[in-house]
C-alpha cells in the first residue's frame, strides 16, 4: 500500500463513539418533526386466506385518528414492493404494499392506521375489524413441494419460485463411479431472525412546497431506497432524499426496501404531514425478513485417502410468501461456494426456491455462504468418520495449496489469493490441538462427554463486477467516494458505503489522514444522506472497506495528482518529480517543500492560477471491483456436554482469519467476535419456528433465543495474511466470516463429543432438549 502507515494498521479507537456512549446519537425513532403523525399496521392473523371485509368505522371514530387505509386506497397509485432478484424463468407474483384481497402469511400488513400519537395509532389498529376466510396454509418447506400441497399462489403451477436444474455432468458421474466411497447427508440450515437491536424505523416527510420527499429510514442502502421508492411511487428520484441516520445494526435484513418504506411516503404525501413508524420487536420477528431456511441434501464421492473428488447437492430454499429484494438469488451463492477452500474437482447443484405461507427470507450475515460452508464442513467430518481418519487431516488432504491462485472452482468462482495451510498450522499450534485432543481423551476415559470442533472455510466478499446488474437493481456493484478539501487542508469524505456499526467513519479517516499527513481530527466522514453523498450503494456483503475503502483510496490518488500539479507549477518543475511524504510535497535534490495545507490554500486562493486546471481541491471516484475477494479462516473449539441435561458448555474457541491487510485491528476484531457469537447463536440456540397453521411461535425474546454474554468463553484470535491482488488496499472483507466458520465448527465439536455414544447427526440448533434426547436415544439403543 502506498499510504504511509501512521494510523493505518493501528487499533485506533472509534470516532463514532463519543456520541454513542453519551446517548447523543440520533436514530430514526429519535427524530421529532413538527406535526408528525404515527402509523400502526393491522397485520394478518392468518397464514393464508381471503379478505372478506375490512371495517374501519370504529377505528376512524377513535381519538386522534387521521385515517385508516387498506389496499383499495392504494390501487393504481403505487407499484409493488421492490424485488430486484427476478431470475430467469422465475415464478414471480408482485407483492403489494398492503394485502390486495388475500393474505399470504401471519404478519402481512393488511391496513395502516394513522393517528396523533403511537398509543392512539395502536389502539385504533386493534379496533380495525378484518374478516378473513382462512384456508389451509403451506408452512413446511419440503411439504410445499409434495403433490397436492396447498399453493401459496393459486395462479402459479406449484409452490416452486425458481428451479436451477442440475446440468448433465459426465465428469461428475465418472468421479462418483470411480469413488472408493460415497457419503450422503441431509442437512437442515434452519430459519433464523437477523434481530438488529434497533428494529426498523421510518419517518417520511413530503414537503409540498418544493414537492420533495425526505425519508429517514434505518437502512443499509439509502441510495437503493431512494431508487426503489421512486419506482414504486412514481416520484422522480431527484425529488427524493433518503437519510439513514444512526442505524442500529442490519445484518442483511435492512438491505431491502420494504413495503412500509414505500407506504409511509405515500401516506405523508396524502395527509401532508410527516409520518413516523417504529417497528415493535414482535413486528420485527413477524415481518422483518428472516435468513437461511434451507434443507440440503448432498452426496460426496471420496477416495480412501480422504480426498473428496465430487459433490452432488440439492438446496431447497424457503422464500417465504413472496420474493424479497434479493431472496431468490441467495441460494446461488451456496452453489458458487460449494467447494469451500477445497480442491474438489466436480460439482453439480440443484436449487429449488420454494414459496411457503411464512415471512420472506432475505440476505442474513453470510447470505448463502454459511449454508455452503456448513454443507462442505459436515461432508469433511463425515468422510473422516467413514474412513476413521482425523478430521484435520482430511481437510489438509483437500485444501487448495498456495501455488494455485488465482484458482477457478468447478462452480465458476475465481479465488483471488490464499495460503490456507499456513493459517491452519498457526491455528493448530495456537490451540495446541494435539494437546487438547489428548486432554479430551483423558476426560472421556473419566466418563465426560467432550469434543473438539474444526472448520476451515472461505467466502466471497466485495461483490463485483457490475456486469451482473440489471435495470431492476438501478445500480451496479461499484462504490463511490468524494473528497472535499478545505483551505486549511481538512478533508471531508463522502462515502456511499453507508455503515450501521462497522466503523467506516474511523477506518476511512485513517486512510485519508495517512495519505496527507494530517490528523484524524482533520478528517470528517459523511454518509447516509443521498442529498450529500450523491451516489452510492451501501454496506453489506463485507464490502465496506474492500469496495468503499478502495473508492476512498482512488479519490485520494486523484487529489494527490492535482496537488502535485499545483506544487509543480509553483516551483516550476514537473509533477513527476514531486514526492509526497509525511504531509509535505518535496522534490529530491531541491530545497523547497510545500505542506498539504499550503497546497490546499493555494488551490482555493488561486491567485497563482495553474494553467489548464480549475480552482479548488476535490475529487470524486467510483471503484468498480474487477472481481471478488475470498477471505479464509480456521475456527477451532472445544465443548463439554452435561450428560444429565444435554446442556453444552463452550470451553474454548479460536479463530485464525486471513482477510488480507487490516486497516484497524481493533474494529476488525469486533467484526470477528460479533460474527462468531452470531454464528454460534445459529448453531446453538436460534430458530424461527411456525406451527402447522403458520402461526409464529418465536415472536419475542422469550421464545426466540438470543445468544447472551454468559454462554461464551473468551474467544482467542489470531491473523494470517495473504493480501488481495484485486484492490490497492489488499483487503478481502471481514463482516461475515464469523457466521460462516463458527456454525459448522460448533456442530463439529458437539458431534465429536457425542461420537462415543454413536450419535453421528443432529440438526441445528443444538439446544439442551435435542442433545438430551440424542443422549437418551443412544443409551436406549445400547
Amino acid at each position: 500500500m502506498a499510504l504511509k502507515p501512521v494510523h493505518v494498521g493501528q487499533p485506533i479507537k472509534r470516532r463514532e463513539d463519543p456520541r454513542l456512549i453519551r446517548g447523543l446519537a440520533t436514530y430514526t425513532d429519535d427524530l421529532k418533526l413538527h406535526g408528525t403523525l404515527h402509523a400502526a399496521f393491522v397485520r394478518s392473523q392468518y397464514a393464508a386466506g381471503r379478505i372478506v371485509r375490512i371495517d374501519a368505522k370504529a377505528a376512524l371514530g377513535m381519538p386522534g385518528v387521521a385515517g385508516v387505509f387498506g389496499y383499495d386506497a392504494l390501487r393504481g397509485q403505487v407499484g409493488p414492493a421492490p424485488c430486484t432478484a427476478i431470475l430467469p424463468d422465475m415464478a414471480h407474483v408482485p407483492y403489494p404494499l398492503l394485502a390486495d384481497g388475500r393474505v399470504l402469511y401471519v404478519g402481512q400488513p393488511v391496513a395502516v392506521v394513522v393517528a396523533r400519537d403511537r398509543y392512539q395509532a395502536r389502539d385504533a389498529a386493534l379496533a380495525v375489524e378484518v374478516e378473513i376466510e382462512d384456508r389451509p396454509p403451506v408452512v413446511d418447506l419440503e411439504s410445499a413441494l409434495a403433490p397436492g400441497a396447498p399453493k401459496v399462489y393459486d395462479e402459479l403451477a406449484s409452490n416452486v419460485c425458481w428451479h436451477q436444474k442440475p446440468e448433465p455432468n459426465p465428469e461428475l458421474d465418472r468421479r462418483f463411479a470411480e469413488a472408493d466411497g460415497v457419503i450422503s447427508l441431509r442437512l437442515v440450515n434452519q430459519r433464523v431472525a437477523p434481530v438488529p437491536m434497533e428494529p426498523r424505523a421510518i419517518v417520511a416527510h413530503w414537503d409540498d412546497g418544493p414537492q420533495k420527499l425526505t425519508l429517514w429510514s434505518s437502512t443499509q442502502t439509502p441510495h437503493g431506497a431512494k431508487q426503489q421508492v421512486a419506482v414504486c411511487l412514481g416520484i422522480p428520484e431527484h425529488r427524493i432524499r433518503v437519510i439513514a441516520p444512526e442505524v442500529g445494526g442490519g445484518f442483511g435484513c435492512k438491505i431491502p426496501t420494504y413495503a412500509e418504506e414505500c407506504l409511509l411516503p405515500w401516506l405523508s404525501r396524502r395527509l401532508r404531514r410527516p409520518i413516523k413508524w417504529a417497528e415493535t420487536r414482535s413486528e420485527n420477528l413477524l415481518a422483518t425478513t428472516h435468513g437461511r431456511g434451507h434443507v440440503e441434501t448432498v452426496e460426496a464421492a471420496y477416495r480412501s485417502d480422504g480426498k473428496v473428488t465430487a459433490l452432488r447437492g440439492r438446496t431447497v430454499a424457503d422464500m417465504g410468501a413472496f420474493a424479497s429484494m434479493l431472496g431468490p438469488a441467495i441460494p446461488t451463492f451456496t452453489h458458487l461456494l460449494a467447494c469451500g477452500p477445497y480442491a474438489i474437482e466436480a460439482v453439480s447443484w440443484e436449487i429449488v426456491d420454494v414459496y411457503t405461507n411464512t415471512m420472506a427470507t432475505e440476505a442474513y450475515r453470510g447470505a448463502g455462504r454459511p449454508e455452503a460452508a456448513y454443507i462442505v464442513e459436515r461432508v469433511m467430518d463425515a468422510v473422516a468418520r467413514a474412513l476413521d481418519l482425523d478430521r484435520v487431516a482430511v481437510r489438509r488432504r483437500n485444501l487448495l495449496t498456495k501455488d494455485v491462485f488465482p484458482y477457478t472452482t468447478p462452480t465458476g468462482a475465481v479465488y483471488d489469493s490464499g495460503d490456507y495451510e499456513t493459517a491452519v498450522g498457526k491455528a493448530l499450534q495456537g490451540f495446541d490441538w494435539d494437546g487438547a485432543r489428548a486432554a479430551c481423551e483423558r476426560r472421556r476415559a473419566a466418563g465426560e462427554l467432550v469434543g473438539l470442533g474444526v472448520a476451515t472455510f472461505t467466502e466471497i466478499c466485495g461483490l463485483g463486477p457490475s456486469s451482473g446488474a440489471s435495470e431492476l437493481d438501478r445500480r451496479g456493484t461499484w462504490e463511490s467516494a468524494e473528497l472535499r478539501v478545505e483551505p486549511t487542508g481538512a478533508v471531508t469524505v463522502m462515502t456511499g458505503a453507508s455503515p450501521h456499526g462497522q466503523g467506516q467513519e474511523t477506518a476511512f479517516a485513517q486512510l485519508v489522514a495517512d495519505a496527507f499527513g494530517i490528523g484524524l481530527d482533520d478528517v470528517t466522514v459523511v454518509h447516509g444522506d443521498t442529498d450529500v453523498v450523491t451516489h452510492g450503494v451501501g454496506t453489506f456483503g463485507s464490502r465496506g472497506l474492500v469496495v468503499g475503502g478502495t473508492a476512498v483510496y482512488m479519490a485520494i490518488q486523484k487529489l494527490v495528482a492535482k496537488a502535485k500539479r499545483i506544487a509543480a507549477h509553483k516551483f516550476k518543475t514537473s509533477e513527476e518529480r514531486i514526492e509526497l511524504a509525511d504531509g509535505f510535497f518535496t522534490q529530491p535534490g531541491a530545497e523547497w517543500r510545500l505542506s498539504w495545507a499550503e497546497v490546499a490554500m493555494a488551490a482555493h486562493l488561486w491567485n497563482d492560477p495553474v494553467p489548464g486546471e480549475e480552482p479548488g481541491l476535490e475529487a470524486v471516484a467510483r471503484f468498480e471491483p474487477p472481481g471478488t475477494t475470498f477471505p479464509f479462516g480456521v475456527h477451532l473449539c472445544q465443548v463439554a456436554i452435561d450428560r444429565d441435561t444435554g446442556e453444552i458448555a463452550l470451553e474454548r474457541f479460536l479463530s485464525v482469519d486471513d482477510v488480507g491487510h487490516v486497516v484497524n485491528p481493533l474494529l476488525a476484531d469486533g467484526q470477528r467476535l460479533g460474527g462468531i457469537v452470531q454464528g454460534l447463536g445459529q448453531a446453538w440456540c436460534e430458530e424461527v419456528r411456525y406451527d402447522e397453521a403458520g402461526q409464529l411461535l418465536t415472536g419475542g425474546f422469550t421464545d426466540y433465543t438470543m445468544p447472551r454474554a454468559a454462554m461464551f468463553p473468551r474467544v482467542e484470535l489470531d491473523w494470517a495474511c495473504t493480501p488481495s491482488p484485486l484492490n490497492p488496499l489488499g483487503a478481502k472483507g471481514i463482516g461475515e466470516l464469523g457466521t460462516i466458520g463458527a456454525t459448522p465448527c460448533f456442530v463439529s465439536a458437539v458431534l465429536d463429543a457425542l461420537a462415543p455414544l454413536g450419535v453421528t447427526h443432529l440438526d441445528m440448533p443444538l439446544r439442551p432438549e435435542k442433545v438430551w434426547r440424542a443422549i437418551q436415544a443412544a443409551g436406549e439403543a445400547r
Partner: protein
Amino acid sequence: MKIRVQVNGQLEEADVPPRLLLVHWLREDLGLTGTHIGCETSLCGACTIHLDGRAVKSCTLFAVQADGGSVKTIEAMGEADALHPLQAGFWEAHGLQCGYCTPGMIMSAAQLLEENPDPSEAEIRHAIEGNICRCTGYQQIVDAIQHAAKQVRESGA
C-alpha cells in the same frame, strides 16, 4: 396523573396518562432519546436506566411508577470532557458497534460496579445477561467493563 420526578438532577413535573410508559415519557416528552427501546418486554435491556439508584428496564414501567422517585439516564453519566469511566471503557475497548444497546449496557454495568468494584469476567458476563448485544459478541464489552473497573479502583473513586 400528576407526577414529580427528579430526572438527571432536575425536578420534572408532568401530567401524564396513567398508561404512558416511563421510556416514552423520557424519550418523547423530555427528549432524552439516549434510552432506547429494543423489545418492549424487558428482555433486551436497551432501555435500562437507574430509578432510585437501581438499574431498571424503563420499557415495562409506567411513568407514574416513577412518581416521587429519582431517575438517571445515560445523558447524565458523563460530559464530553469528563466521561464516566464506563463510557471511557466502552470507547477504549471497542465495546460497541451500532451503539443501540450501549446506553442500557452502561447503565447495567454501572450497577454492577457499584456492588462489585472488582468483578471477574464470569461475574461481568452474568451481570449483563439481561442486556442483549447483537454486534459485539460481548467480549469487548467485558473488556470495556474491566477497563472501567480498573480505572475506578485506581482513582479511588
